[in-house]
Every structure is written in structure tokens, then in C-alpha cells.
């Protein structure tokens, strides 16, 4: 069965590179003791496929990866996996998807939110919201286009907030 995992990477873990995030996740899954599909070869790795890579320093509330297994990954599995994860990483849910499901073909894009401590300069497609002493700029980013880097617009925090799937 193919599972789609939704995860969040927050706090200090936003400083992980993409590669480091992937390795952390693989090791969490290995610690669960579950049977997952592996690659061939001497150094066997788990067969995982991820959504779009993020620049280091971005908070991720919409991380995604696909995993194939014959095991039933239920609520209990999520609880166990989250209990053996580093602080700042959490799998929020999993869902079974069609065997042919591929992230690259299914994701339309992501909603990013940038937090500013002063009035930001407005760019095309941005929606600005003033919340007390902070400004939140939200915008849609097409899949595999350039993700905003931390500090690119003078923002205080960069958040990948949610994923938008293509309408099938």
C-alpha cells in the first residue's frame, strides 16, 4: 500500500537541509520497527519520495512524503512514530493513496506565509494582513518554482504553510 504522510518541521529543525530532513525521517521510520520497502544495493535505503525541497531555515507546516509498505499504518503507528521523533518534528496525518499517485504530478503548489516585523513592500500576488505588531504576507507558489529564502524580502520568519493539490 502507498501512504501519503503529512508532516511539520518547526522550531530549530527549520535549520535542517533537505537531505538532513530526509535522513531524519528515514531513521524515525526505522525506529518504529516497521517493514518498509527498501532500495537494492549494499547501502539499503528506504524508498521514500518527497515533495518540493525547501531552503534551509524555512518552517515547514506542509511537508509531504510517500512510503510503500504492506503494514497497516494506523493512529497507533503515528503515536509511536511521533514519540520517537526529535522535538520540532511531527507527522500530522497519513492517508492511503493510489499506487500510481506521484507527488510531482499531484501538487499544484504551496501557500507560503512570510512574517514581517515592519510594513513589508508588496509584491505581485501577495496578500498582506496586519496582526497587531506583525504583518503576514501570504502567496501561492507554483510547484517546483523558486521557494522564498529566509530573509529574501527582509522577513522575520518564512513558513511553508499549506499544500494545494491539483484538482483531478
Amino acid at each position: 500500500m502507498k501512504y501519503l504522510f503529512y508532516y511539520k518541521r518547526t522550531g530549530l529543525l527549520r535549520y535542517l537541509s533537505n537531505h538532513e530532513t530526509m535522513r531524519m525521517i528515514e531513521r524515525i521510520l526505522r525506529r518504529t520497527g516497521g517493514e518498509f520497502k527498501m532500495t537494492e544495493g549494499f547501502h539499503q535505503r528506504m524508498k521514500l519520495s518527497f515533495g518540493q525541497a525547501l531552503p534551509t531555515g524555512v518552517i515547514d507546516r506542509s511537508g509531504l512524503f510517500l512510503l510503500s509498505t504492506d503494514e497497516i499504518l494506523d493512529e497507533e503507528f503515528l503515536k509511536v512514530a511521533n514519540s520517537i521523533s526529535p522535538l520540532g518534528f511531527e507527522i500530522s496525518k497519513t492517508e492511503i493513496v493510489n499506487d500510481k499517485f506521484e507527488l510531482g504530478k499531484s501538487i499544484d503548489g504551496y501557500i507560503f506565509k512570510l512574517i514581517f516585523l515592519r510594513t513589508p513592500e508588496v509584491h505581485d500576488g501577495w496578500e498582506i494582513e496586519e496582526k497587531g505588531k506583525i504583518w503576514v504576507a501570504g502567496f501561492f507558489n507554483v510547484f517546483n518554482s523558486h521557494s522564498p529564502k529566509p530573509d529574501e524580502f527582509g522577513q522575520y520568519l518564512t513558513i511553508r504553510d499549506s499544500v494545494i493539490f491539483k484538482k483531478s
Partner: protein
Amino acid sequence: MNNKKHSSVLNKLVGILDKVEKPSRYMGNEYNSIKKDAELSMCLIFPDLYDVGMSHFGVKILYDIVNKSDFAKCERSYLPWLDMQKAMMENNVPLYSYETYTPIKEFDVIGFTLQYEMSYPNVLRSLKLGDVPIKNSQRSDTDPLVIAGGPCAFNPAPMEEFIDAFLIGDGEEATIEMLMAIKKGRSRSEKLELLSTVEGVYVPGYNYKVRKRVISEMKNDWAPTDQIIPYTEIIHDRGVVEIMRGCANGCRFCQAGMVYRPVRERSANDIFEISKETIKKTGYEELSLLSLSSADHSQIEDAISLLKNIKDTSLSIPSTRANAFTVEIAKAIGTIRKSGITIAPEAGTQRLRDVINKGITEENIFSAAKMARDNGWNKIKLYFMIGLPTETDEDVKAIGVMLDKIKRMGFHEVSATIGVFVPKAHTPFQFDAQMMPDEAFRRFKLLNWTRRFAKLSFTDPYKAIIEGVLSRGDKTVGEVVEEAEKRDVIFADWDEMFDPDKWMKIFEDKKIALQKIMEAKSFKDPFPWDFVDSGISKGFLWSEHLKSLKAELTPDCRNGCTGCGVCQKFNVDNVIQEGIVR
């Protein structure tokens, strides 16, 4: 000290981490790291970059033992790379622990592991970044006690002015005893006084003789299985199980082989149980079987066949001997498709291998290489040293002949790393001279012709000289260490940071008698480490030195006592498991 996170450091860190290379090196908060409340706190610092320090197993052992105690806690720190050091200084962030982001000066104890001499200036830089006075004479009751251990502690002299107490030998039992002594003492001087009564501990100015500490066996409780998982890719990023401590081969150049006697093996079953637990607790995909000479473990084959039952986990074995059995083992763990096979003949002629008591024959080396080739290896890597005692040009040239013969066996790639020999304290070669750089460069040239078919890499002879000064030096060498740190000569072991001219200038400015440190010594010459008893008598080392001059062998002491004195002195024995465990 409680386990609350220090927000003063953490808040500033958030602004800094965006701006440095590989921020995950400095983040802390790794899985399996421990935050606990305890009466007494220690911060263990590996005085090098996180990538190196996190790969070190000794820290893992002590971290686990202290955190399992009911009165003390252990946190960790490392020396940040230059970009991070700069950012920390600009933002007033002191060196902090990776568990609770506590400035190191707030700990009761700071512990350093001295694994290689080149890290000495890094120790001082760590203290400075942590705002802790670097000299023990400058520290007061409000400063942490600074302790140190590791192989380099066997010659404490060069670091004596900086360290409050040295632990010499095995740390499993002694570390807890040291922490208890520190807890009991009311003032700094009382703590030091109490520390000086712990067996294996040398406190400069308090005791004048010290005998190394030995554990008689490898208890399973001392094997850390909840090993901390780094986020960043470190040098040895895998689970580790120590299968054996000590080595009985008696290679005359090897300090670890001399000072960590006797041999203490873990049984194949224990290795298997520890390994299973380590993989379960870490999620590592690779497990390394650590020891000074893993192929010598009496149950290594049984251990490997048990370990192969751990699913989706690859095995690796560092440090094995250049013989056919090594290839058998490599085959058994299934490394054929890996990069290549490594063997260490150390010297080119049989005469010189006998001088160093390597205990392998030409036949052993060639049959290992042939067997590797027959079993599908395309790449082979060999380790040699030049500048070994009694070496002639013929010995050096013979390295080339050996490489040529091995290349002709049909390997696609033959590579050789040629190091410059550095005599170490507490070895039979402590009496021998160290080769100077000009001579080393001349001897390297004798091997240039082999570049046609082999990849050669030479270690920098100047690096060897500096290592030689730091390892056989006395108290005055401490001034060199202090000056090196002041002149920013840190991370000296990193090629991109190594600057021989700066070192030579420091030696000159501090009037270091280079020739005197490098020249041959006699039995009657006093050594700065004479007061440190490794269990092996100076007389035994001298007789081994004399035998080396005649190329006479001393057998492995598992086949009969060779009289080094360790077992009698400490009332211990080689712990050999033997027998078949299935």
C-alpha cells in the same frame, strides 16, 4: 542545575544560525540527547568540530554512564567552526551545551577528551569562547573544574597548566568517582585534594605519581545503546558497538596498543544483544564493530554471523590486520561492492616489519591481496609509514616494489597513504629519534616512480614534527599551545587550516629545543611522563626497543605472557571469549 533551556543563548542562536554554514552542527536538540535535573553538572567537550566530535565513541560511553547516575548529569559541546565562532563573539553568545544551551562556565565540571595532540590549541579556544580562564592557576571557586582524559593524557605535561585534573586510562568507573569527589569537596582546593585520591587521576600540584585506571571487563551496562543521532552528516555516521578494548599484538609504534592493555573482549552474544538494542534505539542503517584490531577478536566470525540477522543493517569493521582472515571477514560482512579493501603493511620490507613487531609476513600481505582480488575487489588501499627506526632507503623503495606487485594482480586502483612516523610516549619507540621534514621529503621522492600505477598520498612531514613536539614535549610546550591559540592556529589537524610556518615561528619564539625533542634518548634519560604508570615498565619498553634494533619479534601475549607487567600490576588478565557461541 536544572534542565531548563537557557533562553538567553537560545534566542540569540536563532538569529545566528541563518548566517552560518551547516547550522545543524550547532543546533543541539538531537534525538536521544538527555535533559535531566541533577545536583552536579558536567559538560563534556570534544575540542574539534561537531562532525568529528560526534563521531567519537568515548564521549558516548561517558555521557551514558554519567546520565544514568542518580546525582550527576552530562551535557555536550564542541568547538564551532570559525564562521560560527565569529558570529558567537559578535552576538555575545558564549560556548554553550547542546542539551540546555547553558553557557559552559555555569557547569560544575568541564571535561575534555584529548584524542590527538593537534587539538590542544582547540581546548584553549573552547575555554576562551566559554569565558573560562584558560590556566588552572587563574580559576577560582566560582569557575568550573576542568578535567581531561583520553590517550594524550598519558603525557599530561604539555597541558598541565590548563587542566585541573587528568584521568589516565579507562573512564567507566573513574569518571563517576571523580564526580563524587567533586560533589563532596566544599572548595576548589578541597575538590582537587579529593580528586587526587581517586585512582588514575593526576592533579597537578597535588599528587606526583599516578597509575592508570583499568576496568577488568567490559560490562554490558557500560555499552551506550541510546546513541545520539546527529542531523548533519558526520564523519562516522553509524551505530557503534565496542567489541574489544586493548590489543595484544604488541606493535612497537602503537601507543593505544601499549597503554590500553590488557585485551578485554565482549562475547559474541553480548555484542549481538548490544547491537540489536543500538539499532532499535537509533534507527541507524549501519553498525560499526569497534576495537583496535577487530579481526583478532576470538569470536569475530560468530559475532558476524549473529549480526547478519539484524535486518536492513550493514556492518563495518575498522582496524583489521593485513592477512587473509581480514579478507574472509570483509567477505562475510559483504563489503565487496563497497569502495575497496584496506590493509596496513606499515613497512615495505620484512626486516622493518619485524623491527616494528607488526607480526605479519610478506606472504600474509600478498595472499590477502590475492584473495581480495579473487573475490571481486577492484580497489585496494594500503597504509605505510616512513621514518620508522632503522629505516634505510631500501626499506622505502620496497614499498614501491610491493605496490607494483599488488597492481600486477589486476586491481583497477591501488592507492597508498604514506605517513611520517611520530614516536609516542609509553611505547618502545619513545627512545627513538623522529625524522625531520627535509629527510622525509627526500625519502618520499624514492617512491615517486610508483605514481605511474598507484595513487600516492603523503602526510605533511611538518604536521608530524608538530605532533612529535606536542606528544613528547614537556611543560614548556604548554607555552606553544597557548601561543598557537592566541595566533589563531586552531583546527590544526584540518588541512585547509594547517600552516607549518606559523608553528615553526612559534617554536622559534618560544625557544623550543626541537632537535632535543626529536633526537634519540637512552634508558637513563628522564621523560616528562615518567611519573605516569601505564602498567608497562620502562624496563620492558627499553628491552622492546633493544629487540627492535635486532629485528627480533615479541609474540602476541595471548599466546603466553611476554612480561610487560600490566596484568600483574593491576591484577587483571586478558579477557578472551573463545569457544563457539551459536
